[in-house]
């Protein structure tokens, strides 16, 4: 082998090695990307790291999911940004890899993030997570966002039997699924002990439009006072009821749509 060939091989070897030296670990990049940018250098490093992480998808997302259970809030924020920004063909396959992860926190986050992309064909993989208390809310929310009809009965059950937040998730899931068969269950929730559930159910009802109005009007007189107040405000938001605008002292006025379904 001539010196010329040896020199060429050596050049290739150095090039090969330097390519490894230049490629920073994903963990290092995630650190820079989520570090508090309290100096110009750190802010620039953050910008560069975020660009490179995006270029190295989906590996970056996998690296981030390996640490998502931890206490670094900015890592969760970063992944949320990716979930909202990047296309489904990048995000969905990567997240699906974590919905059966050993760590419950990781499972829950992956299932929750999937709700921001349409991947209804994977609904069957989410139903088992309805059985687990700590993933139930995320699974129900995502199934709702995917408008999976089979999730309605689960949502109706948890609208009654769940804790406060799960009842809220259930009401929103019923709204998202969009099946008006859920109207009776949602209207029942007008009597929930907590306004967060009552009013979320009302928002869901209003989202059903004319069918909801007809249903509510047909039930005139069969409500408790609290539920009737919600019913009338629903009808107001649906344009079916004009509440009197009294100018009397201390009269009550509505400032636009109460349940604000826009």
């Amino acid at each position, binding site marked *: 082998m001539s010196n010329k060939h040896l020199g060429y091989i050596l050049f290739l070897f150095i090039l090969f090695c330097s390519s490894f030296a230049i490629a920073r670990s994903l*963990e290092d990049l*995630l*650190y820079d990307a*989520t570090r*508090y*940018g*309290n*100096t110009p250098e750190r*802010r620039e490093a953050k910008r560069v790291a975020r660009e490179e992480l995006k270029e190295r998808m989906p590996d970056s997302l996998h690296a981030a999911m390996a*640490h998502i*259970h*931890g*206490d*670094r*809030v900015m*890592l969760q924020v970063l992944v949320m940004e990716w979930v909202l920004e990047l296309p489904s063909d990048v995000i969905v396959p990567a997240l699906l890899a974590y919905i059966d992860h050993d760590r419950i926190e990781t499972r829950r986050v992956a299932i929750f993030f999937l709700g921001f992309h349409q991947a209804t064909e994977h609904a069957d993989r989410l139903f088992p997570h309805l059985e687990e208390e700590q993933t139930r809310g995320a699974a129900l929310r995502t199934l709702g966002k995917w408008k999976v009809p089979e999730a309605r009965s689960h949502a109706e059950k948890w609208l009654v039997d769940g*804790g*406060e*937040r799960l009842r*809220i998730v259930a009401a*929103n899931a019923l709204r998202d699924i969009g099946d008006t068969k859920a109207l009776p269950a949602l209207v029942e929730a007008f009597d929930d*002990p*907590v*306004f*967060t559930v*009552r*009013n*979320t159910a009302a928002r869901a009802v209003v989202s059903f439009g004319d069918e909801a109005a007809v249903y509510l009007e047909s039930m005139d007189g069969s409500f408790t006072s*609290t539920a009737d*107040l*919600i019913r009338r*405000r629903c009808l107001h938001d649906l344009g079916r009821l004009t509440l009197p605008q009294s100018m009397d*002292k*201390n*009269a*009550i*006025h*509505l*400032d*636009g*749509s*109460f*349940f*604000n379904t826009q």
Partner: protein
Amino acid sequence: MKIYKATASFVAMFTIWLVGSGKVYGDPAPLIPLYPDHVRDHVERALDTLGMTSSDAGFEKDHGKPLWTLGWITNTLNDPWQLPGHADALYTAAESDNPEKWWSIGAELMELDVGLARASGEPHDKPFAGWDSLVNRFLVYVEEIDEMLEASFGNLSLEDRIYLSASILASTFESADNEVHRNVLLEAGISEEALDRIEEEARQLDGSDASLRWLDLVNQVDLPGLYRSFHLFYHAVLNIRNEVTAIEEWPDSPLIRESHWGHIIIGTMGDDAYEGPALLIIDPGGSDTYRNGVGAANGLEGRRMAAIIDLGGDDVFHEEGLLGAGSALWGLAVVLNTSGDDRYESAFVGAGAALFGGAWLEDFSGSDQYRGHAIGQGAGMVGFGFLIDHAGDDVYDVGFYGQGFAGVKGWGMLLDRAGNDRYLAGNRRLDHERNDERYLSLSQGFSIGMRPHAGGGVASLIDLSGNDIYIGDIYAQGVSYYYSAGFLLDGGGHDRYSMYQYGQGCGIHMSLGLLADAWGNDSYSGYILAQGAAHDYSVGMLFDHQGDDTYTADHHAQGRALNNAFALLVDRTGNDAYFSRQRDGAQGIGNNGGFRDYGSLALLIDLAGADIYSGGFSNSMITLRPLYGVVYDYKEDTGHE
């Protein structure tokens, strides 16, 4: 009869003029109770218009489940109506001229199971019998307190203590990026190894393991025991103060007595200069200077206790090192300053500030100035910091973490009992990546936890009277972050409150913030999340009882609940003005909770006066606002409008 009619007519016209001009509202309103029955009745009526009752404010907010938090804070998140009661208790204690009430409320709100009766029940009321006798009696106490401290710090090694100190101080003073600050920490007993370890831990993508180890070490500090030893030390010093007050003959030159715990120095009536650490300095008068570790306890360097008793003169307490007068690290510090216009200047920590310890600074008269970088003027982290100023027009200036600040397991109280005071917090550390050209204040009744692992403590800035000015920037004036409680309570005067983001009765991330002002024509100026505002499962409240008040903000303000929170602004009387640039982001309004997709509860309650709302809301009307809130402007039906 004509005279009677004319007189009656004049009285009626005069009354209309007075009320109309907003000049007279009867006697100044007391601050407490913050939430009396007649206000409660209106709030319940406002809730009723929303189809709610008081219990609806108790929607679930305890979603963080930290490993450690104060129980009452979690309970109050779930029943926000308890918050005014806690403020009442705090103010009642502050208003009392009995320091034992201040100690008691500290123990109560920090949930310390302590018996404080022993120290307070054994006053030294003996006549002065010579310095040796006095010093010997003091040292008996010191020996006992030293043993109590050792027991309180448990099995923590010196290395553990250095590490715990570094964990707070390295980030507070950014020692990784600032060589000068790093050297200051090293000179105070923090090791290179500890600083390196902290920097290494900060590089972890998941800091949980390090945080849990930290919390485990912190949990080994016996806080009730620490509080008891602090209380006993305070009384030991107070008793000396009471005993020496009557002395008329003082030495011509300072007397110095050595002890195992440091020097005891008896000063002169002249202008003395004290330099270097001492266990106790007693100075009878003169304009004195205190420098280089005087009045500061540093357990890392074997000086667990430090005290100063100064009976007169315009004194200067100036510190370039880490710990200024009235501050403690793994120890106890007490400064009692009887009179004079004094200056307390700390380049770093000082003036009633404690880390893993207790610090008490009490100034009884004079117009004083307090200045410090961070952790000062009533600040505690795993410890208790009290700053009490009884009189004078005082100036308080801190960079951040001060003027009533509490970190994890911390109690910080600044109590100013009289005078027209100025409070400034900021101008030291920029709020990078959020408000790049603004400064973090983290002060003026601000507490913060260690999210997600541990809650914070209780922070309060209490000013009983005077026309006061409060200036902050980011996080200031009755605000807290993550399972903590921040209070700003002002007993009266025409006050000005100014800050930019997060404050003026504001809770952030499962936390409690409250601002209350009794009377005066006050102005509240903020930009985002201010003036009875709350974000993310939090509770924020602002109460103003009396006066023609002006509220100004951009958005997320004035009874604004954001992301499943509860916000309340109650203004009882006066012709008030509520200005906000963004109509849909302020004044009795909630939001849809972002991805959570459900509402909040927001109440703006105004119970009298001719008020102005930038949102266009009418006087004597109840306006329901989306997701879910109300502007409840009530006017008594007099029947002759």
